[in-house]
């Protein structure tokens, strides 16, 4: 079985969010970059677990981005994965990114394409569904469990107001979230091995963007907390009722 894991580079969860160039660009100075946590902890680690259970599984990693995304691919390779690919396309919109991955996955004959449920920077939740549509295969979204056997995938996925268990024949696309696997820390052998694993650069196709980000905006600063003395909790209820009018 061939698994393709989609890897996105995102700012660290604790990074300061600021913009430059007239609010058109994320201010990347001094920002630590990480593998998007949903891609890493859930999609990639689950792929590694499937390979640990069945040595015939191969794992390829793909990212769509500039050369500055390569350290993130190496980090992912240190956790696991056999080969990696970077499609050279900077600032692509969701559809362009999905089109690159879908084209690559179709040509490569992958059985399973795994993504995180969303990236923590754009919060689009779009790539997995778009890839599945462009490949014309099923999409199991928001999966919390995934097993594969006999050419068939079984997944537990979150639906509105609960969860359900799905079965479908491969190939398909699964977006992964909490519950799927546990975070792992790469060991020294993995980090050393990642240096020599293949990282190939692939040219992007000419798919056009469907959207463009015009500008960013920061929310207005909070006025600051209004503290109520601990011996007068009734005053808090009054403020919520009469001032904020939320209860």
């Amino acid at each position, binding site marked *: 079985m061939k698994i393709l894991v989609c890897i996105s580079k995102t700012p660290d*969860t604790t990074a300061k969010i600021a913009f430059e160039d007239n609010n058109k660009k994320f201010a990347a100075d001094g920002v630590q970059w990480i593998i998007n946590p949903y891609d890493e902890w859930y999609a990639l680690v689950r792929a590694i677990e499937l390979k640990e259970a069945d040595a015939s599984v191969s794992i390829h990693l793909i990212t769509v981005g500039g050369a500055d995304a390569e350290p993130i691919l190496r980090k992912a390779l240190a956790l696991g994965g056999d080969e990696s690919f970077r499609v050279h396309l900077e600032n692509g919109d969701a559809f362009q990114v999905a089109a690159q991955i879908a084209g690559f996955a179709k040509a490569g004959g992958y059985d399973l394409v795994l993504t995180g449920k969303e990236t923590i920077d754009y919060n689009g939740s779009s790539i997995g569904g778009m890839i599945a549509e462009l490949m014309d295969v099923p999409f199991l979204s928001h999966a919390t469990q995934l097993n594969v056997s006999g050419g068939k995938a079984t997944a537990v996925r979150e*639906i509105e107001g609960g969860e359900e268990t799905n079965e479908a024949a491969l190939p398909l696309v699964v977006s992964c979230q909490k519950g799927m696997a546990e975070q792992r820390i790469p060991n020294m052998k993995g980090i050393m091995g990642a240096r020599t694993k293949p990282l190939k650069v692939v040219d992007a196709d000419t798919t056009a963007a469907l959207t463009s*980000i*015009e500008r960013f905006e920061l*929310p207005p600063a909070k006025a600051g907390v209004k503290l109520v003395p601990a011996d007068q909790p009734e005053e808090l209820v009054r403020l919520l009722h009469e001032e904020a009018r939320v209860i």
Partner: protein
Amino acid sequence: MVLVFIDQNEGTIKKSSFEAAAYGAAIAQQTGKTAEAILLGDTPADADQLGNYGISKVHVVNQASLKTMDAQVYAQVLQEAADTLHAEIIIFSNNTTAKAVAPRLSARMKAGMVSGAIALPDTTNGFTVKKSVFSGKAFAHVNILTDKKIIALNPNAFAVTTSSGSASVHPLECSAVQPAVSVTQVNKVVGEIPLSEASVVVSGGRGLKGPENWGFVTELAGLLGAATACSRPVADIHWRPHHEHVGQTGLAIAPNLYIAIGISGAIQHLAGVNRSKTIVVINKDPEAPFFKAADYGIVGDLFEVMPKIIAEVKRIKGVA
């Protein structure tokens, strides 16, 4: 025409779908179009209520394969319906159904999509939609470049106004599609207010010291008609079910009021709740980072504070 996808649960329309309907109607008014709705599956009892939210017609596609949500089937049926009805703008509420279906529909129709929208589009120069990004820490204004457009509206983001109107219900024929996915088991959480749609959320953290003290959270939530939530450590040690976990790796919510009891407010927790309109923090540690993100707070022992708060809420709600 603006076409609003309506989600239903147990035979009634979801609150967030009424929000999407009102949002779609406002866009229709802004752009000189009509607003209609589309429903897949059985017709919910309250379908005609959509008229109060500015919807003139409700189209219903009812096929056996639509009783469960298969993104591939839904996208195919919705495209056919959108083409038949000449829909130009398609609106979803940004919930788990939309996150599965809308991207497929976007790719299928080559219609640019903005998910997580929080305001009406700016149509003065292009068609730009404001959306939440960086887990609620910033906004992006995204221009949809294509003629056909898809918007997934965040729950609790759009102030709904209603007026009295009536919507007529019309069956719509679409080609039958066989799902490639089979649903072998469904577990629905019944009787609780869905966390993603709740306008008030009461949440507890490790400060409560144990699951036996959750009465403070559930009693206050009951009085306020609120959903209950919890921090990640609380879900991880199984004091509360995982579906209540809000934060970076759990659910991201944006209620009108978020009350955090005994939660310190680590940045990962804030990422899931910082879009809440009013945040109240009750914590004994004055250095808890949550106070920096809060609107109201009490620095104090929750075991002393909470009984008094609950008593006062009962008093103003007239509950004995």
